[in-house]
């Protein structure tokens, strides 16, 4: 399949309504990602959008991240469809589940992809908060002794 770069899609200038581009651009801007400390790996993401394939090359070097559209040797080549990629980079689909489901194909190092998942966001509706439950509520849910 031909590799086509959408106009203005190079890192630093994200398209409107392009969550994948925004995600990779933002990742590249961070430069140092704490969760990748002491990790080094190169991943290539081939994102299929109809007939086109958009490529992102992510080089992690001891926690420092560089993102480009270059073609290069990668420890892991990760392929997915654009719609799935958008859901993953916005936290609507969990990447590990997507891999088990067959939405993501990974050639090469599964370890590199497992590492990479650490920079993906959680579900947009997750708050990290939950209302306390009283002892009376717990007891009411359980059959009497």
């Amino acid at each position: 399949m031909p590799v086509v770069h959408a106009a203005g899609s190079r890192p630093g200038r994200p398209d409107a309504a392009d969550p994948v581009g925004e995600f990779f651009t933002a990742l590249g801007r961070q430069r140092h990602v704490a969760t990748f400390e002491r990790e080094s790996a190169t991943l290539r993401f081939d994102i299929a959008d109809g007939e086109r394939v958009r490529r992102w090359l992510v080089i992690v070097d001891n926690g420092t991240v560089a993102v480009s559209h270059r073609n290069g040797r990668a420890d892991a080549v990760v392929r997915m469809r654009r719609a799935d990629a958008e859901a993953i980079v916005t936290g609507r689909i969990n990447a590990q589940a997507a891999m088990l489901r067959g939405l993501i194909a990974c050639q090469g190092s599964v370890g590199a992809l497992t590492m990479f998942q650490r920079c993906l966001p959680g579900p947009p509706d997750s708050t990290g908060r939950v209302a306390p439950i009283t002892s009376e509520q717990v007891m009411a849910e359980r059959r009497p002794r």
Partner: protein
Amino acid sequence: MSDGLVQILEGNTFVVSDERGDIEASPTDSTGLFSFDTRFLSRWVLTVNGQRLNALSTDDLQYFQARFFLVPGTGTVYVDAKLSVIRLREVADGFHEEIRVLNHENAPVDLKIRIDAASDFADLFEVKDALAKKGQYQARAEGGSLVLAYRRETFGRQTWISSSEPATIDEKGLSFGITVPAHGEWMTELNVVAAGEAPADSTAGLAGPAGHGHRHRVRRDMARGLAKWIGRAPELRCDWEPLERIYRRCLTDLAALRFSTLTMPDRALPAAGLPWFMTIFGRDSIFTSLQTLPFCSELASTTLRALAERQGTRIDDFRDEDPGRIMHEVRYGELTAFEERPHSPYYGSADATPLFVVLLDEYELWTGDTRLVRDLEQAARAALNWIDEYADLQGNGYVAYQRRNATTGLENQCWKDSWESISYRNGDLPGFPRATCELQGYAYDAKVRAARLARVVWKDPVFAARLEEEAADLKRRFNRDFWVADGGYFAVALDADGRQVDSLASNVGHLLWSGIADKSKARSIAAHLLGPRLFSGWGVRTLAEGEARYNPIGYHVGAVWPFDNSFIAWGLRRYGFREEAACIADGILGAAEVFDGRLPEAFGGYARSVTRYPVRYPTACSPQAWSTGAPLLLLRVALGLEPSGDNLMVDPALPERFGRLELLDVPGRWKRVDALGRGRVDTSRLLRR
């Protein structure tokens, strides 16, 4: 094997069959070929001329290999068979089975050999909960193989069945029309491969479970691997002969429990239990790694790396994930793939995170492997940050838990994870969030140990000083807020209002292990642990007699857990209670002798004088990793093995009946050291209970 089932496994692939080698699973029945949490065969039945076979004998040769001796007929009335059949089965990316048909007559015989095969491709969770499937099935003959396939959207799983001898293949199995010469034999090999599938209509393929590339992988020489594994461990000699058998059983079972992840295929960590829990569990893998450090430190280093790889980095309510949190359980089946279960991974455990830091330090003390400590500095710092930033759900500076996934998340996120495990004296259950006492101990220990690592390895004395200050503050508050003055012990938890959950439970033993208990309070704790309410004569009960929910055969409310006891003994030793620790070692190892070297997950909390023998608690998993590790930790405790710089200190306090005990070639940063001791502790008074 008990209940007439035979199970063999390698990694997370396992086969459970009846004693004939046949599989006839129902949707809720647990026999079958399983791999990556999916059942790949639910039917596998051998017939000769349409007749089922009958087992004469069955051998579990190794944990990965079984042999079945069979004859035709129902077996109700035994007649001299003119024919016998031997099945030899070995697990490897599915399984490999050799079928031998022996003709005992003086004339050739024509036979129809048939293997019926089918698969329901059930997720392990579906087997447990009897859920209906949502995808489509297909069976076809393809290139000399019978292919059973399942597809739900892009999720595909396949079972490939082929034979070395030519077979007639239909959608329900393989048939062989054969002639066996007089006093001769016929043999075929059957190869069953559990595989993923690359869906044709997408750019994606399956990167997880065994792709087709694995199908022709040469079977490893697993028997040689097992011998090497046992050969690397220290050698044990003891006047009390059962201990040698227990030790050998533990090493063999640990070998069976070794599990490799897709990210580190050449390294092993301990899975939680065989066969249903052959996966990474944060808590179980850490506790087992701690128990086995003096014997095989590789399990600890793999566990630490694997857990760091999967450490939480985001807020995910479905998975109870927070940044820095160490995972609880990972699964690979269909329900996890479609996010109907949260195990990708699930993070609902409040103890694994501090225990991760504890293990990292203990590992370095034994091995001197500072490289791993440097590699995992960021992970350890994130874990410590989780304790302060995400675990303080009550806003009082204590680690607490409450699930955010109210449907499929875990209610109790401590090791006692059943619904009634944490209760007040009167039996009422506290609300949420809950702060159980042992979590505070682990958090304290994590800070103290991380301070050492920060000073020695990370070269960050400022961070070290801060951690030490926080630990001291936590200890001071804990001894004030958790102490049940009228009982002389620590409350099992603080409830959502900060009120004491005032029952007496085995959790107090872990407080000695972690060092959070004030010295002045330790004697009272030790007296309770070996006292009549908690100590059964075999071990420490999970909940004390006299509490409203106490039940000697209650899972976490009275049963005795060998793993629990091994850490309690370590704690007693830490505070100088040598004889008490020896009593627990004697009781639990005595139980291990009764259970033929393999300790169950738990056994009844009945007084020893009442039942004479320990009563097994019925569970599906055996061996269980942390029960397997318990005798090993008890050996360490009884011998008083403690790393001190580049030396191994040995300070034995052994039960009398052990006589002379030698543990030779204990590996560590000192290379290899021998540990010797003689049994001098009289444990008879307490064990008579």
